[in-house]
């Protein structure tokens, strides 16, 4: 397999345009926070002055500036994670690779990180976001690749993949459901709503008609695309059973 970075081979210069946050967090625990970030910035080609300026700016952005004089080991797990996240973005990379960036973070820090990732997208950086949390992926990503057992099971724009599934989910808020719902392969009750998974080619309007013809008042009727989580379960289950 041949890799190409920014239209060329993965040279050292090309790799310097990459910012990487590994899943295992591991800054040098006994070093000072500022020292570590400045070091990593220098390795990415920043001058000493620029590395210091970017370190200060990123620490302020992630809310760790007042902890800058501390040793890394004195920071909490969440702070460690934010510090390493900041180190990956110090040199304003064109490609940012984030491996499970939110694991172990509290909701406030997750929100801070999501905002910064969004800023990076707006700056023009490409983000590769690796996660097992499908809700995060749906929220953050435009395109997805689903890999299981080393094989690519799914790849493409998220919206297109959902529409291409052919199977749709219908959610109906009603006091009861008819005896027969046409085209529904699966029926569940979630949060007081009936949810039906339609088979290929089924008409969602037939479900609505079944409720109305049964004299059941419908408070809300929703045709939903499948969630990424459902797609994940379906694809991985299929691959494992194959």
């Amino acid at each position, binding site marked *: 397999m041949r890799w190409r970075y920014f239209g060329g081979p993965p040279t050292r*210069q090309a790799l310097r345009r*990459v910012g*990487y946050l590994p899943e295992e967090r*591991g800054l040098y625990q006994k070093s000072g926070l500022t020292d570590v970030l400045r070091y990593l910035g220098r390795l990415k080609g920043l001058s000493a002055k620029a590395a210091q300026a970017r370190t200060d700016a990123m620490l302020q952005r992630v809310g760790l500036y007042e902890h800058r004089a501390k040793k890394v080991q004195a920071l909490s797990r969440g702070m460690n994670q934010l510090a390493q996240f900041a180190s990956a973005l110090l040199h304003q990379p064109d490609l940012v690779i984030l491996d499970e960036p939110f694991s172990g973070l509290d909701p406030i820090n997750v929100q801070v990180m999501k905002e910064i990732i969004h800023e990076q997208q707006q700056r023009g950086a490409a983000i590769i976001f690796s996660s097992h949390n499908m809700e995060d992926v749906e929220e953050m990503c435009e395109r997805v690749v689903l890999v299981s057992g080393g094989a690519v099971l799914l790849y493409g724009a998220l919206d297109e993949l959902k529409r291409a599934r052919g199977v749709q989910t219908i959610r109906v808020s009603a006091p009861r459901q008819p005896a027969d719902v046409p085209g529904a392969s699966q029926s569940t009750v979630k949060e007081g709503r009936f949810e039906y998974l339609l088979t290929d080619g089924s008409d969602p309007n037939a479900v609505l008609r079944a409720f109305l013809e049964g004299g059941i008042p419908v408070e809300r009727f929703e045709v939903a695309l499948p969630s990424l989580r459902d797609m994940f379960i379906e694809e991985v289950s299929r691959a494992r059973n194959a």
Partner: protein
Amino acid sequence: MPATLDGVRIVFGHEFRKQIGGKGFLIATLAIPVLLVLIWIAIPVIRGFADGDDADAAGSAAGTPANEAGQDAASAPAGIVMQARGLAVDFSPYPEFRVYAETAAGLADVKAGEINELFVLLPDYVANGRVEHYYTEDAGDGAQRLRLILRDALLGETQSPAHRQRALDRPQFQRFTVTADGEVSAESGLAVAVSFLIGQGFAIALIFSLIAYGTILLQTVSEEKENRMVEVLLTSATPLAVMTGKVLALGLAGLMQMSVWIAAVVLIVPRFAGVLPDMDGIPIDVGLLLLVLAFFLAGYAIAAALLAGIGAATTSATEAGPLSALVIIPLAAPFYAMPLFLSSPDHWLPRLLSFLPVTAATSMLLRLATSRVAPGEVALSLGLMLVTAALLLWLASRIFRAGLLLYGQRMSLRAAWAALRYGG
């Protein structure tokens, strides 16, 4: 500046600051100077206690010849027995030396208190510098005086290389104490301890230090691999730059520490002669100390490259620890033959171990602390070590890169071989 050199410089700067910034480094660096100062302070105290005990003992044995003579120590002459082949010395201009034909006669005068010390220049003195030194507790600075007389004689007697060399080298004193009761026994424990500490003890400290710095490098590499920091580093610099920067940084930190230790030895040890007369002045050879530093650095480079390779090929510091014994045991192997190194440093085994890169540092440090080593042997040993170190460093960087791709897995021999052939 090429990216690789830039990477080396940045990694070097970071690792060096990290290393010397710790309290452990400061404590270890100051340990030897503090120890030497403590010894310097302690010797007169210990000797004071010993003298006090001896004085008490002498009081009960009042009237013995040795004690009577001890009361007039400064004026008592020293005895000399000349058995040395190929060397004739006229002691007639030196009334402080009384010449004896036989050791027994001189020793009888020591026991009788006629003289306080007796020097016997053994037959192989010119070749090996061996001198027997019998002395009482009241002995003066005869050894220092004798060295000057012998040096003049060796330089004046002949211009043969052996004599000139002997004039440059210090004598190898084999010391015996003569008690007030006339008993002859091997040198005092204090003098032996101090001599050992300064000579072999210092060499041992250097060897442990180079092993320690190699082990620190192993831990650093293992830790970075374990916490995936290595992946971040290698998207920024080449494996060779990262590895070289680390090895150089720890090497310089070690060199700084060694320099402080050596400076302490140079400045403090000569003062021991003032408080421990039977040590008769400890010569400090700066050239020898520079050689010691060179072997320390070369030995460290080999140990570091090997240990870094182990760190790169294993999955964690815990797993790398036991494997590091594969490097540390050969490094320390010459210690197992230490008696041979001390008694016969030019024996074929110490010489052979001096040319095997993994055992060379320890062997040469022990030999240099014990005797003079031929310049050709020093150059060959050092050259072999430096070439081996460079090769090992290159190999370790390849393993380092390949190990990155095998996260969580132990590197098989086949994978290691592939990494070496194809660069990981």
